[in-house]
């Protein structure tokens, strides 16, 4: 498998060099520097030279490189590198050159733990944090044999993601349904592609080893347990919104949603989901991503954009962009940002908006129009004009698509709703659950 993990900064200096097999020689660092970092033509993340394969990922201002000498599992290698980045982020806040330089001892320690002989081991942040600690928290427990046995039991156990002795005075669970809506609209206004990538993030502060059951208004699920129990039965009501209502009403109001595909955190019992579509799991302590899903049917697009862009001769481009909110007037979106591309040879722009502020950003060749608060049903217009400088070689403007960013609370583009979350625990305590919905822009692009 992996022969070594290398980390470089942008200048090509080797920050971390950890060999797991003796075929990973120090000279390889120079080869990667010459062949990839100082070679702007490289277009593939995988490069094989001789019989050595470099797979690299760029994050912030560092390159993370995995060296392999065999016909390795490429998907695993990249996924591992991304997991390494995730670990770095959760340990240091930001995983960049500075963090690597300041914590290189810790990084070696981590690498030693998550890879053995080039095979990935446990990469769960929570478990690792128990026995590999930053300077601030001194590893007192580690030197105590009984504590360490417990830790190692957990690190290898069937519930490797959860400690056994979690205690909370108030048992709470927060569920965030976050949807990234992707849109690609053609210049003529037809929707080429609209889909939703959703994730359900849970923050569980629950005592003991609770067994949770989770229900959505997924069509297949609903078909299955139409006679099943309603939400909030005995195990506390869902707070935060209307979710406390009986399931029948919810279904009537929201209809059901077809999920194309869903993926679960490793705590979810996949066998049960496959058999009867029940999402059942013992959650890790604290925050984790319970599931990801994809929906392509009946996607509600929160914003409609109508751009009119006219190139007048070779010296001027006129824009008129109208954007309309397509959701209930009780809701409002925040941080709406519309990026309107301008030709590369733009000299000067003038903008007028009916709401928010627009500014030209020469470094990105964009006019950025920001609207801090966008209430449902309203419509705003921007008119702008870009004056172009004349260029000697008149290359056609590629017209990159106009893109949108926003976040909208209490709205799901797919129409997904959480029907219930039930917690079962030996001590039979009651718990409070909260659900929150948010829709954000994924890649929300409109061609013109």
């Amino acid at each position, binding site marked *: 498998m992996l022969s070594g993990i290398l980390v470089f900064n942008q200048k090509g200096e080797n920050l971390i060099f950890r060999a797991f097999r003796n075929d990973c020689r120090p000279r390889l660092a120079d080869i990667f520097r010459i062949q990839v970092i100082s070679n702007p*033509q490289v*277009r593939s993340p995988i490069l094989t030279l001789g019989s050595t394969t470099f797979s690299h990922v760029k994050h912030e201002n560092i390159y993370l490189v995995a060296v392999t000498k065999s016909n390795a599992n490429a*998907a695993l290698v990249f996924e591992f590198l991304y997991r390494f980045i995730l670990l770095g982020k959760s340990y240091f806040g930001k995983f960049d050159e500075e963090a690597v330089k300041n914590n290189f001892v810790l990084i070696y320690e981590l690498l030693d733990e998550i890879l053995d002989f080039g095979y990935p081991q446990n990469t769960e942040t929570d478990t690792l944090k128990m026995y590999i600690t930053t300077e601030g928290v001194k590893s007192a427990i580690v030197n105590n044999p009984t504590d360490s046995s417990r830790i190692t039991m957990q690190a290898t156990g069937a519930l490797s993601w959860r400690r056994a002795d979690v205690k909370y005075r108030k048992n709470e669970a927060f569920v965030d349904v976050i949807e990234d809506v992707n849109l690609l609209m053609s210049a003529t206004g037809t929707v080429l592609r609209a889909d939703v990538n959703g994730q359900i993030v849970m923050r569980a502060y629950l005592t003991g080893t609770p067994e949770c059951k989770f229900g959505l208004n997924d069509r297949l699920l609903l078909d299955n347990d139409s006679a099943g129990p309603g939400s909030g039965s005995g195990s506390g009501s869902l707070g935060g919104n209307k979710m406390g209502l009986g399931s029948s009403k919810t279904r009537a109001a929201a209809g059901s949603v077809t999920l194309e595909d869903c993926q679960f955190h490793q705590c979810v019992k996949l066998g049960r989901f496959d058999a009867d579509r029940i999402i059942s799991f013992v959650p890790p302590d604290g925050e984790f991503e319970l599931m990801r899903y994809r929906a392509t049917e009946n996607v509600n697009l929160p914003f409609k954009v109508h751009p009119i862009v006219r190139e007048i001769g070779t010296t001027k481009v006129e824009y008129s962009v109208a954007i309309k909110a397509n959701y209930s007037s009780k809701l409002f979106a925040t941080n709406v940002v519309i990026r309107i591309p301008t030709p590369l040879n733009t000299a000067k722009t003038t903008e007028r908006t009916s709401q928010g502020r627009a500014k030209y950003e020469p470094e990105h060749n964009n006019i950025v129009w920001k609207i801090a608060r966008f209430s449902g049903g309203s419509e705003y217009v921007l008119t702008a004009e870009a004056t172009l400088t004349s260029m000697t070689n008149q290359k056609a403007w590629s017209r990159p698509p106009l893109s949108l960013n926003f976040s909208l609370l209490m709205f799901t583009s797919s129409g997904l709703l959480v029907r219930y979350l039930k917690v079962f625990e030996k001590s039979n305590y009651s718990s409070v659950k909260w659900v929150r919905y948010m829709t954000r822009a994924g890649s929300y692009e409109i061609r013109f």
Partner: protein
Amino acid sequence: MAMNRIRGAFAVPRKGETFELRAGLVSQYAYERKEAIQKTIMAMTLGKDVSALFPDVLKNIATTDLEQKKLVYLYLMNYAKSHPDLCILAVNTFVQDSEDPNPLIRALAIRTMGCIRVDKMIDYMEEPLRKTLRDESPYVRKTAAICVAKLFDLSPAMCLENGFLEMLQEMIGDPNPMVVANSVTALSEIHHAAPETQALQVTPNTLRKLLMALNECTEWGRVTILTTLSEYRTSAVNEAEQICERVAPQFQHANPSVVLAAVKAVFLHMKLVNAELSSNYLKKMAPPLVTLVSSAPEVQYVALRNIDLLLQKQPDILNKELRVFFCKYNDPPYVKFQKLEIMVRIANDRNFDQLLAELKEYALEVDMDFVRRAVKAIGQVAIKIESACEKCVNTLLDLINTKVNYVVQEAIVVIKDIFRKYPGYEGIIPTLCKCIDELDEPNARAALIWIVGEYAEKISNAGDILAGFVEGFNEEFSQTQLQILTAVVKLFLKRPDKAQGLVQKVLQAATSENDNPDVRDRAYVYWRLLSNTSDTNAARNIVLSKKPPIVTTIHSLPPALLEQLLTELSTLASVYHKPPEQFVGQGRFGADAVQKAAIEEQLQNARDNPLAAAAAAAVDGTAAPQQQSNVENLLDIDFDGTAPASAHKEPNGGMSGLEGLAGTPVRVESPAAGAPAPSGSNNLDDLLGVFGDTPAPSANTAAPPNGGAGADLLNGFGGLDLSGGGMSSPPPAGASQPKKTNEDILSLF
């Protein structure tokens, strides 16, 4: 005095970094020592040689500070080789640590011992390893399991003598899933390194254990188990059913590598289960595959390459998912290119409208490479779907009207292929001819000239157009020259009155002023054909013979290779679409062996067919720059000092030749070593290549009916092979001849 001075020169310098570090390492204060160790490791990472500090670092090994211990161990692993004797000093600590009450320390000791690759250390490993394999803590056991693989790498004999392999095999039944996963990992590593050990034998019993552990172990463990399951060859239907049933839920895992490993396991075992069930599994794996397309770009790339393979085997699985593969504006180029290929593969007569609109959009972007591929994709769709052809041609005409130089050139190359499949588009020829002055690439020029020659009777000013080209004949690329030659001869045969002078002029130029043997030889062939008085129709029959239409221009892998690659899903081989032997050595001498074999093959070829080999060598030169620009190609850089760089190119050459010829599956089986790496399967250069570099044996196996004639011609013209392209992709030169004319040709000599 003199002695003193000499001694002074050899003594350790009293200043400098090493001196300071040493001072720190032997300091009486613990914190200073630890700091010095950290600095030493830092210097080590930067590539400085700090091996001189070995004894001083080693003194710090006996410590209760776990962090410091880890640092010392890290240093030990790196420099053990430079001081093998001193390592013995550390043994005691290791053995002690492996009996520490703290499982973390026990595991750390055994993990590190395995990484110190010194012979003396191995002797001391036996006892600690035996103990830790039976440790009460699963954490220690799982570490010890991997350590067996490390030991096997160092000393297989010792590993076998002490029965560690058997212990490991027993551990597949361990109650802890992670121990199971690591045992399987270690066993499969040993099994692959030394197949004769039969380390990993899946029996019905182990199969059951593996399936049990699958649902409980970590994600990485799952990948290991799934990979082992897919390598397991069973012939029992119920076992295959069981595997599919237990593995399919893993499609829903959040980790893409688990999903791909599960897809692989199900895909390979699906063949045995009944048709209904297996089509069910195909349906089930489609959504997870699509979801992979929204992961991080690098993972996406691996997934896309794998989807490409799956689609070649099962073209229908993603029929409805076209839109998912639309390129985003800021997708990295390697992802975009792959998405294009997949979109063409899943194009059908229901979705081509959408696809064409999208491809047209891409063709108007600025990245030249991407635009070209988009245009090419339009052509591939046209040839794949008959009902889409008219729309494709209209789209291409729109693109030609944009007058963007490289778009026009690519469009013309593509239109030429369309002409080869569908008649009835002659009406657009005048539009094409208008672009004649803008074409500067040999490919595009050759394509247009071929069109002019092929439809000479319908183009009123064909003579004038060709005259222009004949004028500058000697300045053209040889590829274009060959086309000019053929086109003029076609024109002459169709309208003898108009091209009498032209044909003489061009034959004169090609035979007396040209030094390219291909061009000259072809000119001579035509000359003799045309001056053949015994049968006036001979030339007409040969040059203007009817050509079978082409079937597809979509690149696909030869079936045998595809089957092999499907067993390699999600590995590097599946990303490169090349068998692993091509870029990786099996065992220690593998890479060399492959190279040797390749050189041997090349030599053999050279002996068998000196001319073809020479031609191949010549073409190799032209193929080289292309290889460089394509980073996926394995660069032949020799940095391990094991192989000569020149020798390394040959396996590549052979392989890319195969790929290039993949459009004509019949020929692929034949050894086409040394053929150039053409950019597309049916480009003109590829077809012309038939004249230069297809070795004779391949031609014979490919086209049995023409075989006799081909061999005779080879004798006559030496290396000129007229029959190679006769099967599914006729050379535009009209070189493929109907059988009845064989005698005519033979009578020439």
